[in-house]
């Protein structure tokens, strides 16, 4: 069995993934998921901390909740795209709001993918993997 704490899986590397969400229980599930896939997981509880972590740790991919206190996911996304040092970071936007305007906003902010909550864990993992593969190929 593979635990979240032991990234023993085979893989080209242990890419860093940042989870940014203000709901602790969702973080728990995402963290478990990502660790099981062998990623190195970082956690941020709000937008400001998320941006700090991105700039400091340069994660390959960010799972970014859209609605967080302080700085929203959209703002974080825009800030990342504007920052040359980290602008290449893959961003998967997670949102509990399903309205089309929210989608448009997310895409407009520069997210690579947009996933509505509640999500299928398998699909999310699949999507993350694909994105990282494409990213390394490019």
């Amino acid at each position, binding site marked *: 069995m593979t635990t979240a704490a032991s990234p023993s899986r085979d893989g080209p590397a242990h890419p860093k993934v940042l989870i940014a969400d203000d709901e*602790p*229980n969702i973080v728990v599930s995402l963290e478990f998921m990502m660790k099981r896939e062998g990623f190195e997981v970082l956690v941020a509880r709000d937008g400001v901390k998320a941006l700090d972590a991105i700039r400091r740790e340069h994660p390959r991919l960010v799972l970014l909740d859209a609605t967080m206190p302080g700085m929203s996911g959209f703002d974080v996304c825009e800030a990342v795209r504007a920052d040359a040092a980290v602008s290449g970071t893959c961003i998967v936007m997670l949102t509990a709001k399903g309205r089309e305007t929210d989608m448009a906003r997310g895409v407009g902010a520069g997210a690579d993918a947009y996933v509505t909550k509640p999500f299928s864990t398998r699909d999310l993992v699949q999507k993350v993997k694909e994105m990282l593969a494409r990213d390394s190929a490019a």
Partner: protein
Amino acid sequence: MTPTLTAAPVLSAPLVVGVAIAYLAALFAVAAFADRRARQGRSVIGSAWIYALSLAVYCTAWTYFGSVGRAATTGVWFLPIYLGPMLAMVLAWVVVRKMVRIAHSYRITSIADFIAARYGKSPLVAAVVTLITVVGIVPYIALQLKAVSSGFAVLTGPAGAAGGAGAAWWQDGTLLVALALAVFTILFGTRHLDSAERHEGMVAAVAAESLVKLAAFLAVGAFVTWGVFDGMADIWARAQTLPGLHDLMRLGGAEGSASFGYAQWFSLTLLSMLSVVLLPRQFQMMVVECVDERHIRRAAWVFPAYLLAINIFVLPLALGGMVLFGAGSASQAETFVLTLPLSQGQTGLALFAFVGGLSAATGMLIVETIAVSTMVCNDLVMPTLLRLGAFRAQAGGDLTGLLLAIRRAAIVGVLLLGYLYFQVAGEAYALVSIGLISFAAVAQFAPALFGGMYWRGATRLGALGGLLGGFLVWAWTLMLPSVAKSGWIGDAFLTHGPFGIAALAPERLFGLAALDNLSHSLFWSLLANVSLYVGLSLWRAPSGREASQALLFVDVFARGRSAADPIFWRGRARPDALMALARRLIGPEAAAQIFAAHAHTAGVADPTADARLVDAVERRIAGAVGAASARVLVAAVAEEEPLGTADVMEILDEASQLRVYARALEEKSRSLEAASAELSDANAQLRTLDELKDDFMSSVTHELRTPLTAIRALSELMVDAPDMEEAQREEFLRIIVAESERLSRLVDQVLDMAKIESGHAEWHAVDVDLAAVVRDAVTATRALAQARGAEIELAAPSTVPPLKADPDRLTQVVLNLISNAAKFVPATGGRIAVQVSADADGVEVRVADNGPGVPDEDRDTIFEKFRQGGDALTRPPGTGLGLPISRRIVDHFGGTMWLEQRQGSGACFAFRLPYRPKKMEETP
């Protein structure tokens, strides 16, 4: 009227003439000023007061001098002449306003034009009315000339006696006055051809004259009453001592009231009632020169008030004069206004009084001659010229100059005619009698004019018959006897009747001897007039043109000036022929204007001569030459189809249908507008509601999806990893249970909120002891608080006065506040203070904690839906609906909930419920 009763000081003739000339020059200035202002578009006569003053042209020299004379001989008998106008003006708002509306709608310029236009624009009717006017009015004009000349004679003494046999014509003051007035009238009355363009200068001058004559008369009256005598009572006390004067103030004079001639009293009242509208000058001022028909409303009472004012001193002057000059002076009382000041040595006042009398006479003369000359030109000369073909002879030439020349000649002619009458018959009659003869003549217009305004069935034939019949009877019973009495024809027929037929004796027709001359004549002439008018009208149906004009007159208020108005004309006309006609009569500019306006309305550049254009041209020409002549002129250039009564009805039907459609359309569009405004209001409200709803739904969705996300993700992870560690699995399951609870709590609260907001929540209002409710809630939450390491301190009286509220709901509120507080207390040493206090008005509950407090930026929004205090990590689980629901519950029972500001010592939520809510709030 022989002057000089006493050896009064006499003024020099040049002085009097100089003052008169200066006064007339001042009038010129006033008129010129008003004309200039009118041209600048800043009219000075646009006021009801000016209009009322201009109506006072009714008070002529006859009033000014004659009233005193009449009062001296007959007591109160001078009054009916002014009570009649009073009664007439009561109805002015109804009758005169209609006349003004008609006259302005159809460019009517005189009373002859008015009556003729009503009866199918008949030239014959116009001519008859004009003839009656001229015959009836010339004596009246003579009367004014006489007043001026004898006033002059009184002031200047025997040396200045006018019109003496030996004097050459250029020394004849009366003739000079007549000629001077002719010049004045020509200058200000015939400046424009279109009489519908009002004579502003003349109106201003007449209004000024009205002020002068009132001021002068009042000045003399006040002087005599308080200067010569010691008030009115003193005059009366001294007059009573004179023989005969005591009975003067009784109705029947010395013979007692049984001999009171009430028929004559009534006749005089009726006559003056009609004359105030029908005299040419009154019609001119009241109808043609009316600037704004709203002025009638005020003038209706201001004008009678003027009449009252100018009559106040008539009796004091008459009695005072007789006291001073002796009872035998009554026959010379007509000059009292001048002789009284003179006898006291007040030459200045006498001169002022003379100027007042001059005002009264000249005002009347100017307006009367303008009115009569317009009628003579349009209704006698023009038709004759048309018939003679004079216009065809100089086809294409501009006729405006010719028309003005005719009118000017008519002015001179009318004044000279008056002068001639004055010379021939001047000395025969007292002022009052002449005036009354004129009144009775114009009274003959009443049936045709007023009948025509209200009776559609009246015909041209009826009008002609009535006018001629009434006029002939008037001439026979009043005019001829007056001529006979002045000695110009034998008066045998008066007593024996013509050819010895006693039944036809002018003043005792068919032996009717019980009435006085005037009532007798008025009775017979109006009887003949009305009988013929009604009888002949009923005998033959009106022609198409008469019927159409009848409709336009009678229903003038029903019609606007819209395109849906009926135009009673059928045929073909060439635009160039119409244009040529219009140019010749009203000048090229005005003509071009009509065509341009028509093209503008019709929306075409090159107008075809349709009925509307023909009507526009005809109306405009009517303003210059009168309706009857205009009709003849237009008919000459157009191929017209004769209009039958059936055609008229058909045109009217079409027009009224059009009107109905237009009105219906108008109403429909108005109601559509209103409806669309309401709809857009509703739409805006809905949009706001929709936005609110949308926000709410979005928030709810978000709040529902968040626990669902955790539940789904963790469940899937457990399904996918059957080998998961037991501890991990238990952790996940615990989270799933907690999130499920959160989910169901959320669903409950959303439903609760929805119920409250939609007004479907159930409320059970019973007497509640809030202290007990709080105590129960504290007991229930103590365990929860202790689990978080917090203590609840309760400070509450054992009982508080009962409130009307739902105990379950209040419990919900208190529980909510306490659990809310419990979420935020620090992990150790948490304290929650619950406090209940009652005062005279209600009960207050406070729940305070020692947590971090509410950040300033959240204070304003803390009671909004889905706003949770604190950040998500440290924030205990909540739905964000607890506080909004609590607040709505408190609101519902008339209370208030608020967050108390407590610096650095945690949050304190409080609410207050009154014992007697002002109004149970219906939650929206």
